[in-house]
């Protein structure tokens, strides 16, 4: 089953667990009520576009081809054009627009391409969908690993592609639960007897674009902590506990701001009035 099919069924994922913990009302609006977002952020759309380019690059590499930088640029331009041109539901941050991101994307990918290490890891999978069950959670955990590689000694390297406005701190990398979930999934899906290393390939959207690789690992304790947290999240969802975190710095840019205000101010949220 591919990820899009898996996503049709009730499930938890690393991001949904995180979302529930950060603002469970946001989780409800997006994942239970399935309210349409009031807007799409340019960062989200741009990140998706870059992600597709990297996916194409590694797909070609898996086939034994190497995309040249100009091919990468071409693919990006085509994808961004397809994704963003003419859309009025994308909310651009100050100073950004369709054209500026088109230019910036090329520079960002140039930074990534020139920084790519010349490794000969075997690509095992790209966008590898996974699904597994955990005791105490009635619905499966699903997700997809952006890139799964193996080196000559059998070590598995699981990579997640990221675009970010800034470099990551040590703690952000070492405690990121998405990577922990990938390790649990990899162990559940046949890689339990392998050494597993985790990595973020991060394209950093600073004025001068740059790219950083962050390697990390997870212990069994990290896995246990996340599993415990996932159980608590599931417990909250099952009991329909959805607490708005309306003092977060993220509220300002939240795509469910109107729905949240209506909910908090006592009105029954009318989905029809917010198509």
């Amino acid at each position, binding site marked *: 089953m591919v990820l899009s099919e898996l996503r049709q069924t009730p499930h938890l994922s690393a991001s949904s667990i995180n979302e529930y913990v950060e603002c469970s009302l946001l989780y409800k609006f997006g994942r239970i009520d399935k309210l349409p977002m009031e807007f799409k952020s340019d960062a989200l759309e741009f990140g998706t576009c870059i992600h597709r380019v990297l996916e194409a690059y590694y797909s070609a590499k898996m086939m034994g081809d190497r995309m040249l930088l100009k091919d990468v640029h071409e693919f990006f331009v085509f994808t961004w054009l397809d994704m963003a041109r003419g859309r009025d539901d994308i909310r651009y941050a100050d100073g950004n627009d369709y054209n500026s991101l088109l230019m910036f994307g090329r520079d960002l990918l140039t930074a990534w391409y020139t920084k790519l290490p010349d490794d000969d890891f075997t690509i095992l999978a790209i966008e590898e969908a996974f699904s597994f069950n955990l005791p105490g959670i009635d619905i499966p955990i699903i997700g997809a690993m952006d890139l799964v590689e193996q*080196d000559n*000694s059998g070590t598995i390297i699981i990579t997640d592609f990221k675009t970010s406005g800034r470099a990551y701190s*040590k703690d952000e990398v070492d405690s990121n639960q998405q990577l922990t979930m990938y390790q649990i999934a990899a162990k559940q899906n046949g890689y339990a007897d392998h050494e597993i*290393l985790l990595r973020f390939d991060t394209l950093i959207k600073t004025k001068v674009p740059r790219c950083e690789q962050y*390697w990390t690992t997870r*212990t069994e304790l990290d896995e246990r902590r996340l599993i415990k947290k996932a159980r608590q999240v599931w417990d909250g969802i099952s009991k329909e506990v959805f607490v708005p975190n309306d003092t977060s710095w993220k509220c300002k840019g939240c795509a469910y701001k109107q729905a949240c205000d209506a909910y908090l101010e006592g009105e029954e949220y009318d989905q029809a009035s917010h198509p």
Partner: protein
Amino acid sequence: MTAKEIQKRNQKAEQLKVLQSDDGQYFVESSEGKILYNVIISDAGDSCTCGDYARNVKKSPDFKCKHILAVYNAIPQKQVEGATFLERQAPKLDERWITKIEGKEFVKYPGLLDLGHQKGISSIEVEIVQMPTGDNGNFAVCRATVMSKLGETYSDIGDANPSNCSSKVSKHLLRMASTRAIARALRSYTNVGMTALEELADINEAINEGANHEHPKAQSKPAKKAPSKAPKKSAAEDDQPKSDAAQMAPAVENQDAKESVRKDDAKSPARAGMSEAQRRAIFNLSRRRGISVEEIECMVEESYGVTLDNLTSSDASAFIRQLQTAA
């Protein structure tokens, strides 16, 4: 700036405390005593990190804020104090816990505990693997697991029997095995390559016989001259029963060596060499933490007794975790 303004600033400046950090560099305390502003006095011009200076210097390059004036006032009056900076306290093994026997250094158990607590121990658990009985030659084996406050666990075993303990502790074999196991687990956690004094078969014997109590991994240090032969030679030597080294070395270490002979090194994942991905992870983590390649080499040598290139896959895993928790 008018003369009146300068006079007013001078009055305010007189109340401020001035500390000198370096030649031409000063810290001036704010009037509330909550902030230190960095003032630089030099031939090229004076500067201060306060908002008043930043605002006014654009209009008037010779502008002097009250903090700069405070330095000017304090210097002739010799009211400048030397600034002292608190050094970040890094865990350190106190020298009093290190003892030298025939030129070789050994760490004492309390020193390992002290260092462990400095780094942050969450728990130490000991499990009895084997009770000493007549049937097994009074051979006690314990496994100790040290858990750090960050959640990493370090585990190792220790053993004791009448032939690898001094006569004074031969009646307390289980406790001795426990102490040795904890010492070994703490050594892994605290990154101490020195053998613990308590691990030795007989301290008096060690003193008499000299310093052959190196960690087995250190013995198999990959001599650059003959890297392929060194480990095999070490294992073979350790496997010889009743050799001087075997008699003096802790029984657990002999056991490790025997195990390493029994296992086919190439086939065992734990004994397989570090993988390319692990190497990249190590260099990536060290770069992000500002640790130089030379420092990494030293850390590996100290912890595992081998060069970076000769790390096993399992040791590389442990080392990656160690780097992850490094500041």
